[in-house]
């Protein structure tokens, strides 16, 4: 590619962590010779959401009517749209409140007060526009960004991961906290790629990289461990909803763990 790749980084409702992760990479400095930043408010004052870009990174969940319009505009102006992080790919932790009514959430936080903007229940970007690629995680790992950027820059396409965190956890040789202590580690049902970051610290996975498909070979054997350890269906479902409230197959998946096979 002779011309510089035009990049945009756009924020919807989020914690700004995904873009912070990208901005904090020392490698970003090397990228500059190859890329032109057209829009990235967190680092560039001369940003403009109306410019055309080659790659649009979108962080955050769609949570206001204005953001619905924004994602549509981004789609029109971008060649490749990448949803970045749990907010954009899965609705984010803010979707954990999906079991409650928006009006109830509003009342709890703002009482009867009124503001001039229109809030919505948080939703993943895919709900409104076609997304070409997703980077999972809350936030994604630096290597997720590097891999995606690297492949885009050579005109190729990154591959999806379809195996769970447990695979990486076993490779690292961590003691299994689900088997040994019965802690509700979501490693068996969560997309890998973080090198089993949390179990490596003896902390159970909360599933930030999203639920992995359940029609792959290892699923039954690993996921059934939940049942064996005496964790309840409700407990697992509630925990998976922290980052996966919008996953339409969640109930089905958890039912499969608890109702089929022994």
């Amino acid at each position, binding site marked *: 590619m002779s011309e510089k790749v035009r990049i945009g980084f756009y*924020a*919807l*409702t*989020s*914690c*700004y*962590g*995904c873009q*912070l*992760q990208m*901005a*904090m990479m*020392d490698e*970003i*400095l090397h990228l*500059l010779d190859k890329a032109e*930043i057209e829009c*990235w*408010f*967190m*680092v*560039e*004052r*001369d*940003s403009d*959401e109306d410019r055309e870009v080659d790659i649009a990174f979108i962080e955050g*969940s769609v*949570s*206001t009517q204005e953001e619905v319009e924004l994602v549509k505009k981004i789609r029109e102006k971008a060649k490749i749209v990448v949803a970045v992080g749990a907010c954009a790919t899965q609705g984010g*932790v*803010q979707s*954990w*409140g999906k079991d409650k009514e928006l009006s*109830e*959430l*509003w009342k*709890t*936080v*703002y*009482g009867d*007060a*009124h*503001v*001039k*903007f229109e*809030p*919505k229940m*948080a939703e993943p970007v895919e709900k409104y526009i076609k997304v070409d690629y997703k980077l999972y995680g*809350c*936030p994604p790992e630096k290597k997720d960004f590097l891999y995606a950027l690297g492949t885009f820059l050579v005109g190729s396409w990154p591959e999806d991961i379809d195996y769970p965190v447990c695979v990486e956890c076993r490779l690292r040789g961590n003691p299994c906290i689900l088997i040994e202590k019965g802690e509700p580690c979501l490693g068996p049902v969560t997309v890998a790629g973080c090198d089993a*970051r*949390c179990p*490596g*610290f*003896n*902390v159970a996975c*909360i599933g930030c990289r999203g639920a992995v498909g359940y029609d792959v070979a290892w699923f039954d054997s690993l996921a059934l461990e939940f049942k064996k350890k005496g964790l309840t269906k409700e407990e697992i479902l*509630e*925990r998976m909803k*922290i980052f996966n409230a919008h996953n339409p197959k969640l109930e089905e998946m958890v039912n499969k763990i608890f109702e089929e096979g022994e």
Partner: protein
Amino acid sequence: MYIPITVDHIARVEGKGGIEIVTSDEGVKEVKLNIIEGPRFFEAITIGKKLEEALAIYPRVCSFCSASHKLTALESAEKAIGFTPRPEIQDLRELLYMGDTIESHALHLYLLVLPDYLGYSNPLAMVDKYKREIEYAMALKNIGSKIMDYLGSRAIHQENAVLGGFGKLPTKTQFEELKRELKEALPLAEYTVELFSKLEQYEEVTDDEMVHMAVKPRNDVYGIYGDYIKVSDGFEFPVEDYKKHIVEKVVEHSFAKHSFYKGRPFMVGAISRIVNNADLLYGKAKELYTQYKDLLRYNNCFANNFAQAIELVYFIERAIDIIDDTLAKWPVKERDEVELKDGFGVSITEAPRGLLVYALEVKDGRVNYADIITPTAMNLAIMERHVRMMAENHWQDDPERLKLLAEMTVRAYDPCISCSVHVVRL
């Protein structure tokens, strides 16, 4: 004629906010900070959820200070269930907190603030001419991140800080590595003070009525945790009384509420900590404070930038001291068992941007009530007042310049806008 000047999206801050200034022939008519980031309802969505799971998501309020949210939520939860962590654990949490503050201050000063002073629209464009500054920024940011990686599991959204302590502690070798790198970073932090001492010449905002609030540090060491809040007018109150003295109001043009003390806006942040607690500084930071006292003006929000530079030096030195203490007590046990008793707890700590309040009620192992007030929410009212003062001084200037000065005023507060948008239960 009324002329509106708007910045739709303030760049180089965390979160989405805008500025609206309306002027007429006689002067400034109206100034508003529009907070347009969508609401995330953190308090509401965690009610009824398992305490451990709620604690895992609170850091997601904000990435720039995720460790602060984690640790403040943890302290409030532990108070609620009647658990007190061992002093070694409290120290190590403070160390994790320092990693957060070092990273956050370095990013704010070099990448968000400095470009304005040097005439750039983004920090990356400075690389050719200001290579040293960018390298220092990255190095200071890296040591902050590394502390969080080792003690918190990662630099954004730390999972390795849990009820009762940590999942796993760094090894002795890792602590030694951190100490070595902190020592190497100290001269870079001192350079930052020199650099900002030359930039901090702004007089445009002079607010002699400015009141500052900060934690009264525990154990009389300038730091993060405390049980009382100190106000620069001489008043002190226990953290449990926060609702009486930090009064929140919903305003129409923002998803974030405004806060008032005795009916007036007040400021929190690095400058507020120094105004209230400078006598507790020690070491190199104390020397620099004495040397540059004149630049640490209580009545000018721009002094917040310089105060952060002094704090960079202080927190690096303090982090080294904590590591020394930890190694002297080695081996340190990472975690104690906790029992999830019912109760209510309030914690107020010093996040990089100022006071952060968490009040949690725990019932049957679940969150029964949650109230979070963030530093940016507290600062919004005074920030708006100072943007107005800036506009009053410059309303006849070229609109582009007025815009930049208004943005710089906001940036001096180092706002964390996503932080401000999930506010209190009324």
